């Protein structure tokens, strides 16, 4: 309930409440952004964009869904905007300087990067779907609401993802 109070205050124009809201959710935003792109500095950029966007669009939050769900949608939009702007402005920067994190085993990070690449190749929305359901543990309905598609679309996407990614794993073991 406290979070709701905070949001309502911020929506009313209370900057302190807003700052608190950002403090509370920065980690969520950043971590999601990191999983989305697998890169610390980029994730920080995306998180910053998301925080700024939050300032502008918090007023549109209507308490119709969980705040975090609404927030994920915002972060996804920011991340996609960010990616587009990267593609437009400087092509060299995307792949440059992939940080080898000291927190996740380097191997895990490599897998994640591979996986993100594969998911992107599968088509639009696939990566987001996989992240929301598998990384954030959302239900298909929640993920659908966040991505603005139907629940069945989410199920279908997951099915495709499982077919393509699950299968590749099977190979690496079998052959």
């Amino acid at each position, binding site marked *: 309930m406290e979070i709701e109070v905070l949001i309502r205050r911020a929506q009313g124009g209370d900057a302190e409440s807003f700052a608190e809201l950002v403090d509370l959710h920065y980690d969520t935003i950043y971590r999601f952004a990191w999983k989305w792109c697998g890169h610390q500095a980029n994730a920080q950029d995306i998180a*910053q964009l998301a925080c700024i966007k939050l300032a502008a669009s918090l007023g549109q939050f209507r308490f119709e869904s969980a705040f975090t769900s609404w927030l994920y949608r915002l972060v996804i939009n920011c991340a996609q905007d960010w990616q587009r702007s990267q593609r437009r402005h400087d092509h060299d920067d995307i792949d440059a300087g992939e940080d080898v994190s000291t927190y996740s085993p380097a191997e895990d990070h490599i897998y994640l990067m591979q996986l993100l690449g594969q998911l992107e190749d599968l088509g639009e929305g696939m990566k987001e779907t996989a992240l929301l359901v598998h990384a954030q543990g959302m239900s298909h309905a929640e993920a659908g609401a966040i991505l603005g598609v139907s629940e069945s679309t989410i199920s279908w996407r997951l099915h495709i993802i499982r077919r393509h990614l699950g299968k590749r*794993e099977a190979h690496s073991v079998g052959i």
Partner: protein
Amino acid sequence: MNKQHYKTVLEQTVAPPPDPEARLRARRAAVEEFVRIQARSQAHSKDGGATATALPARARSWMVQTRAFALAASIGVAVIGIAVTLPMLRENPDLLSPPAAHELTTSTEKPAEAPPPTVSAAPVEPATAEPAAESPRVLPRSEPFSPPPGQLPLAPPAAEVRAAESAATAVEGPREELASAIDVPAKPTGIADSITSEDIDKFPDTSTAESLQRVPGIIANPSTLDPKTTQAARESESSEVVVTGARAARNARLRAAPQKRVSAPPPAITMNHGLVEPPAAEEYTGGDRFRSFEANAVKQVSAEPVSTFSADVDTASYGFVRKQLTQGLLPQKDAVRVEEMINYFDYAWPAADSRETPFRPTVVVSDSPWGKGRKLIHIGIKGYELPARQRPDANLVLLIDVSGSMNAPDKLPLVKDAMRLLVDNLEDDDTVAIVVYAGAAGQVLPPTPVKEKDKILAALATLTPGGSTAGAEGIRLAYELAEKSFRKEGVNRILLATDGDFNVGIHNTRELEGFVERKRAKGIFLSVLGFGQGNYRDELAQALAQNGNGVAVYIDTLNEAHKVLVQEAGAALFTIAKDVKLQVEFNPATVAEYRLVGYETRALKREDFNNDAVDAGDVGAGHAVTAIYEITPFALNARMLDESRYAPKEGTPAGKGTAGEYGYLKIRYKLPDSQKSRLIEQPINIDAGRVPEAIARDIEFSTAVAGFGQLLRGGAYTGALGYDDVARQALAARGEDPFGYRNEFVQLVRKAQTAKGL
């Protein structure tokens, strides 16, 4: 590649904690933005423009979006907002430090009221690294259901439905069993297209029967799928599921135990031998009609040095072959067009880099696996890929067959799903109209911008099968609509989704083709999406698509729909070159014989090459076209034809400077909006130099596909090649295969092996 399960990777890979400075920067930027918005609302957004100019364009656009919000906020609250920011700023002196190099979006402007920081506060604590839910999740249900030992030799497609309990029904799809029936279980190589209990859980289906019918060879009684069927009836699953076990019909073991019935609640599983009962021959012919043709023969260079053919980017043949093999049937020979099988796959041929010259031919000479001493010449071209921003607007008319014959799960329901995928992938500015044809043709949806996607999807959802087919009337109406919303600069295309059954309306196929051809001249193109089997009229679909400057594809599963309409949408929708013709003139000094693999139905006369009035195949954005010649060089004892008694021995002396060439390749094409053809030419060198690894691998793979296609057609020219060799070659050249199509191919080869053995 991935040694871990991808879900585990997604779930458990831990982000490094954010840089505290980045965190502060984000916080400060956000709060500044917040304050600015509040301040703007205070000034009734009149002076907002001045503030906004300091912001990057993106932030400005957000402000515009939130203007309503800003107006709504009250002045007084905004003042308080600014006031309460102050203590906060004091706590975090970093908020006012100069922006760091990495900073993205903050403006340098600071709130005027902010006093210089006097108190230094403790830095914000770094974020904790653990995501909220860290405990590894056990997902036993995600394991594909594997059949218990001792029951595998049962041949597919006998779906076995077991009702362990009324709540959970475990189902093994026939393809899963098919896979295990062959040698796959030891090394699973392909898409195990099984319907597991988890799949059923995940499918957007309302009943098990509905999920089951996603597997080729299983048809659920349409009443099961009818949304009007009561919930209770669907839950009881009491409707009939028909297994068209054509291959199983000849399996003695299966005959001994022809069916398994589920105790309760019982979907009655009927082994309907009569439904798709194959003829006594091994080869399936069914009711599907294909144009019959003979494989290209070996030609003697001295007698016929020039070979001419049209590009073919259709893939319908591969889809049909796959469907047949998946059911354990060998496809009829005429259904196998080797070039369409080769072109089903995407190869690493380098794409051209300008729209003006949309091709760059890749020519590679390699040893032939089909005959000692012979060589293969691969000619690969890849159409220019349109970047998203260059994509022209699309004006699409979906012409959908809703006749009674479409009343099968792999027809209309699949069409609807496929169209939904397509619409999801279009841009807001594109328009879509829907026309149906059955007893009478009718407009279901006038041209509607994709912005109103809901409207389009709702219209799609209303389609139900019924009536006979008036294909021609439907086509006329579709063209009318396409003309109504014609886009001069855009793509105007009709997508005809049908099982090919045009039995009412214009009886004369020629007349219909002529009609399509005339409309093509006006800039409206036609592509054909084929569905279903039983009365599929491949011949007509091909003819219409060829006359309409479009592609003919065969869609047997939703996955295929995804490949054609989403992944390769550019290729299917945006033509980058039309009337693409290829001509190779062989050098009689170096080549004794040649044979073009496939392209039988696309052969052109030599004189047609330079005649711009002669129609030929079209190439879409990103489409790859591959042609393979098998040649016998001179000085090799591998010729298939006797030498001519009268022709000069050992070839003609080489012309000046051409001794190092096998031949000369010419490609003619027209840009989509031009009537005059252009020419690309290059010699085919005997020593082609180094071939990049990716290309060498794809040469191997396409050779394997070509070998497979020829084997399915009887293998007259492939020597001792067997399915085993093809499978081995394809496996070795599988490469990245991000979508699994190549794996699927290897599986198909294995299926062909067993299908033949019956």
